[in-house]
C-alpha cells in the first residue's frame, strides 16, 4: 500500500538542508523523494557523479548526506558503487559484515547519458544489486549549461546556442531508458517529480529488485531552463501531459505505460514557459517547432508500441 505523506514525513531525512544547490533546484526534490523510499532501519551507501549535486552537497567540511557517501569522478559513479556493492557481497559472504545495505548512485544527464554511459552499461550488465538514478536536466548545468545528448531538440544551450543560422540543438534526445532496458536488467523506469507517488513507488521497487535498477527522473534546472522557479511542479506536469516525458517502467523486460494523458496537448505548452525555447516561437522558426512536435510524437508512438498500447495519432 502506498504510504501517505504524513507517514513519509516521519521517515529519516537522508539529504538534509544546508546544501548549496540553487534555490528551487529540481535535484534537491528528486534526491529527497528517492531516498525517502528507504525505511528508517535500512542502511544505504550513496555514490554520486561529479556535477551540481555533488559539488553543492559535500563542500568540506560539510556533507548534506545523512549516510555513507562516496564521490569519485564524473564518469564513474556506477563503477564506483558497483565496487562498493562487490565489497559488500564479499564481506557478507566471508562473514566479516553483519549489516545489510542498499546502494544507489546519482548522476546528472552529462554523467549518465554521455561520459558515464560506459561505466553505467558495465555495471548494469554485471548485475550489481544497485540503483542508478539519472537526474536529467537536459544539459551540463554544473559547467554552465552546455548541451548533452539528453538536451531536447531545439534547446538553446551555451554550446548549442540559438544563432542566426542554427537555432539551438539540432539532434533529438538519446532514449537512455530504452538503452538501459536493453541490458535486460530487472527494473528500468522513467518518472517525474510532478507525480510524487510515481517517483516513490518506482524508487521503492528499484531498491527492492534483486539486481540492477535504473530510474530516469526529469529534474528541472531553473537556471538552465529559464522558467519561473516556483513553477517547477507545473512545468514538469506539462512535460508529462505533452508526452515529452512519459512515465513508464520496464519490469523484467515488460514495458508498461504508467499514465496516459487524457487529451492531446501540444508540446508548446511545455516549451513556452522556458527561456531555452524562446527562439522556437520567434517568427521564421515555425519549422523548428514542427520538428520538435514530430519528434515527441514519434517517440510517443514508439513507446506505445513497446508498451503494447493502441497507437494514438496526433490530431492534425
Amino acid at each position: 500500500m502506498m504510504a501517505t505523506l504524513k507517514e513519509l514525513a516521519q521517515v529519516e531525512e537522508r539529504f538534509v538542508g544546508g546544501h548549496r544547490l540553487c534555490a528551487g533546484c529540481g535535484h534537491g526534490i528528486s534526491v529527497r523523494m528517492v531516498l525517502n523510499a528507504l525505511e528508517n532501519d535500512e542502511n544505504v551507501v550513496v555514490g554520486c557523479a561529479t556535477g551540481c549535486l555533488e559539488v553543492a552537497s559535500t563542500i568540506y567540511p560539510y556533507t548534506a548526506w545523512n549516510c555513507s557517501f562516496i564521490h569519485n569522478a564524473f564518469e564513474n559513479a556506477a563503477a564506483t558503487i558497483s565496487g562498493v556493492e562487490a565489497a559488500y557481497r564479499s564481506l557478507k559472504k566471508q562473514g566479516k559484515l553483519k549489516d545489510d545495505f542498499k546502494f544507489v548512485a546519482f548522476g546528472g544527464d552529462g554523467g549518465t547519458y554521455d561520459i558515464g554511459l560506459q561505466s553505467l552499461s558495465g555495471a548494469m550488465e554485471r548485475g550489481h544489486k544497485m540503483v542508478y538514478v539519472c537526474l536529467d536536466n537536459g544539459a551540463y548545468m554544473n559547467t554552465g549549461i552546455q548541451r548533452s545528448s539528453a538536451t531536447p531538440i531545439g534547446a538553446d544551450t551555451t554550446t548549442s546556442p540559438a544563432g542566426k543560422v542554427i537555432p539551438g540543438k539540432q539532434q533529438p534526445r538519446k532514449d537512455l531508458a530504452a538503452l538501459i532496458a536493453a541490458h535486460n536488467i530487472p527494473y528500468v523506469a522513467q518518472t517525474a517529480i510532478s507525480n510524487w507517488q510515481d517517483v516513490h513507488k518506482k524508487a521503492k521497487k528499484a531498491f527492492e529488485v534483486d539486481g540492477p535498477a535504473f530510474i530516469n527522473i526529469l529534474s528541472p534546472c531553473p537556471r538552465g531552463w529559464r522558467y519561473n522557479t516556483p513553477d517547477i511542479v507545473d512545468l514538469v506536469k506539462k512535460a508529462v501531459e505533452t508526452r515529452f516525458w512519459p512515465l513508464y517502467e520496464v519490469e523484467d523486460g515488460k514495458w508498461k505505460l504508467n499514465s496516459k494523458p487524457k487529451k492531446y496537448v501540444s508540446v508548446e505548452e511545455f516549451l513556452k514557459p522556458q527561456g531555452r525555447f524562446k527562439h522556437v516561437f520567434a517568427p521564421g522558426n515555425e519549422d523548428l517547432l514542427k520538428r520538435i512536435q514530430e519528434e515527441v510524437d514519434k517517440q510517443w508512438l514508439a513507446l506505445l508500441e513497446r508498451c503494447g498500447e493502441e497507437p494514438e495519432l496526433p490530431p492534425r
Partner: protein
Amino acid sequence: MTPSDKNLSQCCSSKCISPDMNWKELTKAGNIYTPGNASAYETGDWRTIRPVWDEERCIHCLICWRYCPDASIISTGGKFDSFDYKHCKGCGICANVCPTHAIEMISEDEIEKQKEAKKDEE
C-alpha cells in the same frame, strides 16, 4: 525528527573543522565523519523572500514538505510545524504547490520593515 536538530550537535560535539586548522588537524583526505552536518551550514541568508504560514488555511497535506528542495519544512507527528528559516532559500515552490494557499511569500525587506515598526510601537 528534524534534520537540523539531529545533526547540529554532531558537528559541534567533537572538534569542528575550521579553516585555521593545520594539515595535521584536518581529517584525512577530506573525509567527513559527521553525516548530514551540512545542517550546521546556514543557507537562510540566500533568501530574499520568505514563506509565511497561514495556520487557518493549512490542511497539513504536507505537499510543501514533499517538494521542498532544502528539507526546510519541519513537520512533527505528520503535521506541518514550521519553516526551517536557517536553511530555506526562499525558492517559493512550497507556496506554489500548496493547494489551499496557506503559504505566502513575503519579501524579507517587508518582514524587516514590519519588525522595525513593531519595535517602534513598543
